């Protein structure tokens, strides 16, 4: 059987409809961005994984999104590192986080424009992964705000990113 492997940037809504959870192969020789579907869900961890499903916008509309860096054991890490891409008409918009260097170009206002909505129609965005992951339900829902409640320095973010898991 030929494994269903593709670059993460090639994932489509149809791929996510078939397989909501994809994981990185971490095989550098064929490319760091190659992913394959996870057949068995719910999963225990979202490390090295990308999810695709519908998120709920502030105005109640649902939009297809892909999610990465969702830490099912650390809500604070999720708050700072979550990556969210929203699909519209076959195109993906990758929302920048406050620490990303192109926040102005890809921030909340830009996403609202991409969707043809007002910023307050879009944010906060509710990201609920309970269908796909086992764990503490409270840690499986993330709210993406237009302005983060807490901002860490670059050094603090780096320290959190490399920290060993207990």
């Amino acid at each position: 059987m030929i494994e269903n492997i593709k670059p993460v940037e090639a994932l489509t809504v149809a791929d996510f409809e078939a397989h909501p959870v994809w994981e990185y192969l971490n095989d550098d020789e064929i490319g760091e961005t190659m992913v394959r579907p996870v057949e068995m869900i719910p999963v225990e961890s979202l490390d090295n994984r990308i999810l695709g499903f519908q998120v709920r916008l502030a105005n109640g509309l649902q939009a297809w999104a892909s999610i990465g860096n969702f830490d099912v054991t650390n809500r604070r890490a999720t708050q700072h590192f979550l990556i969210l891409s929203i699909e519209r008409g076959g195109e993906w918009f990758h929302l920048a986080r406050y620490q990303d260097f192109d926040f102005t170009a890809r921030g909340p206002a830009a996403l609202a424009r991409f969707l043809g909505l007002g910023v307050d129609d879009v944010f906060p965005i509710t990201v609920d992964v309970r269908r796909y992951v086992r764990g503490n339900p409270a840690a499986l829902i993330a709210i993406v705000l237009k302005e983060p409640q807490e901002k860490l320095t670059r050094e603090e973010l780096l320290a959190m990113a490399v920290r060993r898991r207990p």
Partner: protein
Amino acid sequence: MLRTRIEQANICWSSIMPDYSLVPVDHQPDFGDVSLVPVDHDPFSAADTIQRTRAQLESQPQQLATGAAPPNAGVPANNVEAAASGESYDPDSASGDIPGPHQPYSPSAAPIIPSNDPTAVRSHYPTFGELKPTIYTPTQHIGNLAASALMGLGIQPYTANDLTSRVGNVLGLTPFGVAGSALDLIDAKRRDDLPGVFAAAAGMIPGAKGVARSVAEDAIHGHHPWPMYLGGPVKQDLVPLPISLHYAFHSGLDKVLPRRMRTAYYESLGPTERQQALQALAAYTKNFDAEHGTKLYDALLKNGFPTP
């Protein structure tokens, strides 16, 4: 610390297990020195046994002076009978076990000194006044030998130790099969055959022949120090990393420079933003090195990464 070598320990193996034999090998692996640790008391206080042991020492001074094998590396000495009968060791045998010609395999027949039998220990390790030998378990020997060989090939200590502990954890270690696989390991090391070294290291565990290579290969990933999606060249010197560390590296880097943003995005960055991305990669890699004891930043520079 006084260091010396002991050899005659091998002689005693046959007295412990007279009906046990191992297959012959062409030469003995070099298991290195044995450390001696000074102690304040003699744990075997019976005066007669100490005198007997000292008398034994006096009668065999030349063996002590020239010995090369550590106390628990006495497998080859047990091969005398087998060698005489012309048997040979087949490293590719299905089970990887080394039963005697007329004996079924029995783990309990392993030449391990019973820990609750001081007489047996004493017969292997005669006292040297106020010194006694450091006693390595067979498992420690296997692990140390495998890790040393891997590090001899330039593999980082964390990788070598991770591999040996991973393999040991999976399969469990006993002294059987050590000799043959040690030879495999040394041979693979001489040929600079990295996968062969991994396999031989794993193969030092009995019953692991069939799975040795896959276990070893599964345990190690070749890592691009400068990820290609961040502009790294296709051809780089891969750094062998244990899977857990490789996953940890990319999982953490995803938080800083997500792969989801795709290669084209990073390639499209302007000079300033691109410089920021490279700085972030350098800073992350240094932090990762500090946290995990790796040397990935050095490898990054060796692969042409411009110092940001």
